[in-house]
């Protein structure tokens, strides 16, 4: 004789789980934000936003840029989020995503430079991130290699087999690196540089932060990655030096926008306003190399990176509309000429 009580209990808990956890609906005072910002910054932003907007509960889903894009597009017929918060502008400019957004002139957006907000107010970008090399100083020492300072340096034969790059076909970071080079050097010069670089590249890794992790673990000497990943590795104590390539560091803006389908637009708008508020701006200086809000002092991150006050000196002014439009063609060429 088995225990019938146990059976019915099990059944009961099963039904309870099913019903209790069945899709919770958006409630007033709650908004859902989809973001690709980094974990530690999200935590502080959300805490600060809670202080300024105590009646708004911001629920955050964080995925990497590429995964988030797939999720947003797959859910497009019935979106589950109210705002897109800090997501690669190149991806957001995709017409299929752009049409999900509703124009909203967030408070303070008019003060942003024209390149940092949409003419139709569908998006604005308060922050951005930039490309950087992660150079493992121990590997350099062991192999007696000089410290590289530019993309051109990386084409030198001494670095053969010691450079890892993100694969632009699968990684947004990979694409922003090569798109900036192509825009800066022109079609011909850009591809020539990439091809000679290719001779030294040991591996095209499928995510943007992984090249930095491979370099910091000592698997390879140099990973072309993001400044964020480089600084995080330095902070963790790895023997890593961050190098901003002197001949053009690509960068990406982190754009935010309001979803047409949001069921709580009032709170969603207040949150978007908040992301441009002075409180937010102050927090950005703790994490971000690029802050677009005028009057924000140079960030700690930018100082640590040794960046000049005037970023335009090292950042090539990327034309995002163009890089979004040319994406398919550039990736097609990359796969034919370089792809492995």
């Amino acid at each position: 004789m088995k225990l019938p009580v146990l059976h019915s209990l099990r059944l009961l808990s099963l039904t309870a789980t099913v019903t209790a956890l069945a899709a919770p609906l958006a409630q007033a005072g709650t908004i859902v934000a989809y973001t690709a910002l980094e974990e530690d910054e999200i935590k502080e932003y959300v805490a600060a936003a809670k202080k300024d907007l105590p009646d708004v509960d911001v629920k955050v889903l964080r995925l990497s840029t590429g995964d988030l894009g797939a999720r947003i597009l797959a859910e497009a017929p019935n979106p589950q989020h109210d705002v897109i918060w800090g997501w690669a502008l190149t991806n957001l400019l995709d017409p299929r995503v752009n049409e999900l957004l509703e124009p909203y002139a967030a408070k303070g957006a008019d003060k942003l430079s024209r390149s940092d907000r949409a003419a139709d107010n569908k998006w604005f970008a308060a922050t951005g991130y930039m490309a950087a090399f992660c150079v493992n100083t121990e590997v350099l020492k062991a192999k007696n290699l000089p410290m590289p300072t530019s993309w051109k340096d990386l084409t030198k034969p001494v670095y053969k087999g010691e450079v890892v790059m993100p694969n632009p076909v699968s990684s947004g970071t990979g694409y922003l690196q090569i798109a900036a080079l192509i825009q800066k050097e022109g079609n011909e010069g850009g591809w020539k540089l990439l091809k000679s670089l290719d001779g030294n590249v040991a591996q095209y890794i499928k995510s943007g932060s992984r090249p930095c992790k491979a370099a910091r673990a000592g698997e390879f000497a140099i990973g072309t990655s993001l400044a964020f990943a480089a600084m995080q590795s330095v902070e963790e104590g790895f023997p890593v030096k961050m190098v901003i390539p002197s001949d053009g560091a690509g960068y990406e803006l982190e754009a935010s926008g309001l979803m047409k389908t949001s069921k709580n637009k009032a709170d969603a708008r207040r949150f978007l306003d908040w992301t441009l508020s002075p409180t937010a701006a102050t927090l950005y200086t703790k994490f971000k190399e690029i802050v677009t809000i005028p009057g924000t002092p140079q960030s700690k991150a930018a100082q640590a990176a040794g960046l000049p006050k005037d970023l335009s000196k090292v950042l090539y002014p990327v034309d995002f509309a163009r890089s979004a439009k040319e994406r398919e063609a550039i990736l097609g060429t990359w796969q034919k000429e370089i792809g492995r």
Partner: protein
Amino acid sequence: MSAGFALPASRLPRLASAMDDRWLLNACLWLPLAALLLFFVMPMGFIAWRSFMQEAGGIGLANYAALLDTPGVWRATRNSLAVGASTTLVTLLLGFVFAYGLERTCMPGRRFVSLSLTLPMLAPSLVLGLGLIFILGRNGIVGKVFGFRPEIYGFHGLVIANVLYALPQAVMILRAALRGADARQYDAAEVLGATPWRQFRDITLPGMRYGLLSAAFVVFTITITDFGNAVVIGGDYTVLATEIYNQVSGQMRFGIGAVVGLLLLLPAALSVWIERVAAQRQAGSGADGAQAPVPQPHRLRDGIYAIVCVGLSTLIVAVVAIVVVAGFIRLWPYRLDLTLRHYDITVSGGYASLWTALWVSLLAATLGVALLFLMAFAVRRLTGWPQRLATLLCALPVGVPGLVLGLSYVFAFNQPQLPWGVLYGSAFLLAMCNLMHYYTQGYVTMMTGVRGVPVQLEEAVGVLGGGVLQLLRDVYLPAVRVTLWSVAAFLFMRSMVTLSAVIFLITPMLSMAAVTVMRLDEAGFTAQAAAFSTCIMAVVGSVALLMHVLTTRAAARG
């Protein structure tokens, strides 16, 4: 998989009260079949539909045509086949040695070997990848000791990683096959003076034909659909699974991704056909065994098996152990002092996702075992088209890469106007998704176990006037108890750590442990990711052990 064909139902004894509870038998089939239709076929239907939706708008074959023009797709196909074939060959060979050593020899260290084989199943894929790099990477231990920089990234590393990942699943199936053999055949052979080699060739191998075929098919399929290893160890070696990722996550294009996802179902479908042909050839050799063979000690044989199995198990343990250790090290491999600071998880949510994952996985395991057991029983007892349909459908889920499965769930369940739309965003849906992800492996194991149920016992139930219920309770349930347990443990473990489908179904309020590992890793906190993985493995291990103890005790009490 063809289990149903192994022993045509017409050869099974008719039950006395068959007419009365025919409906019960049918319910045993239709309940799990309905779940399969709703949670697998329907979502995959949406993927099929997507594969015809053209980027330019309209419906047509443009995605199929575009696939042929995608640069590198043929190379990715060739690479996938090469990796799949090599992995299958190595895994079957090793898997057979392990399974045979565990079931048919008295080698010492069986418990250690058996436990070490669960490690690759309960470890998040990050652990296996990191462990291999820490040991075999360019800056790894092996290279440091021998003073060179090994080249693990690419074909060889990928095969090693895939063997590590697939081996436990192959052993699970092969062990179930070995358990079903009949001791009396060996006794007879012994009396007739057959050499051990002759016994092995004429009794053991033919008896395992299905197990070997099924294991080969499962290993091949999980290898060509696996993304985790390909992205970490594969380096530039592109395979079809990474091609799907390039399309879907890299370029936000679902069309071609859907096409590749469907094409990857081909090997699975093909395997059903191959096994059916094999079954027709073998008809008539169904084992009517009552007693499983009990291995007798044999010093030389036991010694050889012990050296091979314990040796390889030690390597498996080393891969996982080094990551566990790294979670306690300040900065691997540069500053080797011990610390606990990585256990202070910094991402929001902290350890909460661990408990969510635990409940979701227990749900997946419980539902899974119940559905799979009924399915296997019904497939064996019934004939006709529903049974053949079920056989085909059960073989397909393993052919679906996690990313495609996750996408299909979004397409199918994010539909508020359809009745099943209420499931979207629920823990139940996550559990079903994880169950479907590993459905085939569970089914194959269950079927292999059910196939070993002795026909005489069924006859006895029939003679005594028992019906379907008695048959289930008194014959099948006790006979496959060990297999039930191993399937439940397998589903539970995999559901705890699987990632690629899950990232499409988590919500801000509902996250899974494997996602926390991914978030920590993406944020650059590798050591914390290792520490969190260690916690997952500890929890999974404890729960599995607890379940094991409880089931053994319940069985002992009768």
